[in-house]
């Protein structure tokens, strides 16, 4: 039903691509992260809750959307979008033809997240899964515990009159953190301008977030003492950072599970908060689909495929241009570390 091509995953029966990384005629999009939603295609289709965000990301594109769970027929394939629990509007794409069912997961997680609909397990014959954190070292603590760590870190820094900068992805992670912080934030959370538009978009979709205040040009020094600031990784090591008084830095990502990774990037703190499934989450999900065949896309794909094969499933690794959490991190963090003149 789906083939790997140089432009992306192609469904011949429907004449469409799923998350193509090069321009095509018709693209079905699981979610609006850059490695899944690249520009230049003629027509896009996504799940309704994600349409507004996708339009922000691809302002010139022709974008149509359908609600979760509503099937449409494209070519000779019955297509429907189902919640993936990754970010607002993220979807698994279910394809059915002649009694055979495939599900392409995109990115997904099983941990609770108030900013998006929870992952919906779907029975299928072939499950195309991500593998961003497919190693047994990746098991997530509940977000309720992680947010307490963030709050404790913030309060300790506040006592010393310092500022806290929590780096996170502008789409999804930042808003999830804001939703988690809502019960704890007694003052507005300061946000970098790059987060403002998407955060507004989440609010417009009816998602409750902690109050925020955008950092403006004149805000610096004492005004920001004791603040918790959310910022994109790309702000790291730039002059923008100089406005923050004695900042303690942290990064919110599943990658922070490994001490050496956090230390290599020089963050004071790492909060293990991921929008991807952890190892038990991946295994449980694959089991729930009942799929005898599993295709593995990006991340620790070789490890997951081999593990599943040893458990008796038919598996195959698909080479894609998807990067999961690692891609964005590597480029942005390394670039900013270099600006700071670090050499190792």
């Amino acid at each position, binding site marked *: 039903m789906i083939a790997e091509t140089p432009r992306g995953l192609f469904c011949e029966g429907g004449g469409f691509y799923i998350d193509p990384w090069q321009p095509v005629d018709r693209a079905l999009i699981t979610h609006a992260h850059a490695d899944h939603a690249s520009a230049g295609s003629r027509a896009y289709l996504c799940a309704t809750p994600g349409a507004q965000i996708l339009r922000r990301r691809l302002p010139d594109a022709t974008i149509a959307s359908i609600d979760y769970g509503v099937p449409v027929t494209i070519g000779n394939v019955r297509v429907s979008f189902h919640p993936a629990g990754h970010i607002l509007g993220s979807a698994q794409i279910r394809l059915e033809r002649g009694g055979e069912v495939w599900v392409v997961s995109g990115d997904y997680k099983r941990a609770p997240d108030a900013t998006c609909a929870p992952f919906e397990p779907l029975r299928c014959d072939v499950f195309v899964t991500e593998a961003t954190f497919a190693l047994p070292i990746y098991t997530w603590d509940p977000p309720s515990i992680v947010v307490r760590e963030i709050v404790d870190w913030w309060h300790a820094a506040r006592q010393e009159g310092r500022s806290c900068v929590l780096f996170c992805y502008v789409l999804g992670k930042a808003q999830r953190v804001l939703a988690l912080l809502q019960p704890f934030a007694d003052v507005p959370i300061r946000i970098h301008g790059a987060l403002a538009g998407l955060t507004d978009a989440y609010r417009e979709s009816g998602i409750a977030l902690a109050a925020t205040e955008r950092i403006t040009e004149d805000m610096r020094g004492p005004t920001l003492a004791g603040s918790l600031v959310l910022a994109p990784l790309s702000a790291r090591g730039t002059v923008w950072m100089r406005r923050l008084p004695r900042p303690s830095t942290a990064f919110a990502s599943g990658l922070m599970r490994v001490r050496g*990774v956090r230390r290599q990037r020089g963050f004071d703190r790492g909060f293990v908060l991921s929008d991807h499934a952890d190892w038990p989450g991946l295994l449980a999900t694959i089991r729930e689909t009942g799929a005898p065949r599993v295709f593995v896309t990006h991340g620790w794909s070789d490890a997951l495929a081999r593990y599943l094969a040893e458990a008796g499933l038919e598996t195959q690794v698909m080479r894609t241009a998807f990067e999961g959490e690692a891609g964005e991190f590597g480029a942005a963090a390394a670039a900013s570390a270099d600006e700071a003149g670090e050499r190792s």
Partner: protein
Amino acid sequence: MKQFAALYDAIDRTTSTNAKVAALVAYFRSAPPADAAWAVFFLTGRRLKRLLPSASLREWAQAEAGVPEWLFMESYAAVGDFAELIALVLDGVARAPEDGDLPLAGWVETRIMPLAGEDAEVQRDRVVSWWRTLDRSERFVLNKLITGEFRVGVAQTLVMRALAQAIGIDQKMIAARLMGDWAPSAEWFSSITSSVPAAAEPSQPYPFFLASPLEADPETLGDIREWFVEWKWDGIRAQVVRRAGECWIWSRGEELITHRFPEVTAAATHLPDGTVVDGEILAFAEGRPMPFSALQQRIGRQRQLAQIMRAVPVAFIAYDLLERGGTDVRSSPLTERRRMLEEIITGTSVVRLSEEVVSDTWTTLGRLRGESRARGVEGFMLKRCSSAYGVGRRRGDWWKWKIDPFTVDAVLIYAQPGSGKRASLLTDYTFGVWDNGQLVPVAKAYSGLSNAEIAEMDRWIRRHTKERHGPVRVVDPVHVFELGFEAIAASTRHKSGIAVRFPRMLRWRRDKPAGEADTLDALRELLRHTQG
């Protein structure tokens, strides 16, 4: 244990030196003295005698977590640290209730150390039951204590600074008291923290004073007459301690190496009692140093010592005097220490003086530096005549003016993940040079690139992996790097027949196609040249 694990977390959770020191100070002030003693022991890089093979820990953890071995090793590539890997994979395993907290000293003395000598099964049952009751941080710390690789991003000098602050005594005094052999205990902790100098252990060496690499033009150092110049020897830095009728030899890593060099020990018994000399142990024959590779045969090998002693004779080149007649003379000017050293070191065979190199100008000295390779040395040591013998690496008074390294342009052929801070990044590279149309591996290197270059290479390697053998990736032979190295020697252990010393990346030669990289013949020629 909880308090020590919390200290570990506090140190680990900040990149600020002051915050680390503050956490240590708070710990030293509040922990029971026996715990504090053990904390100093581990934080200064000391380790328990080997208790059990670390492979056993891995096997038990795999079984406990239900993870196949290949997946465990794949995970290691992402973590780069076995103690942490074990702590992480066991996170998913259900925990047994805790049986109350035991202080660090209790853990070490009544639980961990008694593991030695037990049957493997008993060891396993105990370790696994501890894993089940401890939380993630404590489990990680426990693994570190057992395996003895307790490096937590806190330098030894920070521990000394914190101790000095916590107790309010001079950091140099703490440094001196932490040298040499000591057993951690509450009594020991009170003795090192006492403001009264205790009777020193006779074997105790002094902290080594270290030189900094000279990157600027030597002219910037001013008048050459204010500098004492010696050849920079390429051996093992060592202190010979002659006290109480005995001799000890300490390496810079504060390891006792007395028994490895019996001829030096024997010669040192002719030194007057109450003498401490700093110098370099070299493989030395016919009045000149042999290559470092010869000395390596003397390191680590305990058996057949007599035979190797004949094949690889050594000498101790003395270059500084730290104690004379039982008196610490480190604060005297170098010129004065040197004068006293010349009085004491009169031998010319096994224990001998480091020769002074006299030059009128930096220019003539620079010319002489060109002879370094032929003389089997690494360049010059420049020491300010008026300088005291300090502690640690302090810039300004002692410089090493090394010769430029050898270089070769080689092609990146394999890559694998680094460890520690570089876990999950592909940073350990193997390089090849051309031999009959094939690339033959000649060197492994992992330092010299900027973080951005590392990230770029990591991404490129992941997309251009041709084959994988466990963690090792074979990549398209495209990228050429200029490698620098200090020495070259013939080797039967390497496929290329050549071993290079301290290889590192000097430059990414983006301008050079792989086909134009160097050949093995060129390296062979270099080898012939340096041997001749």
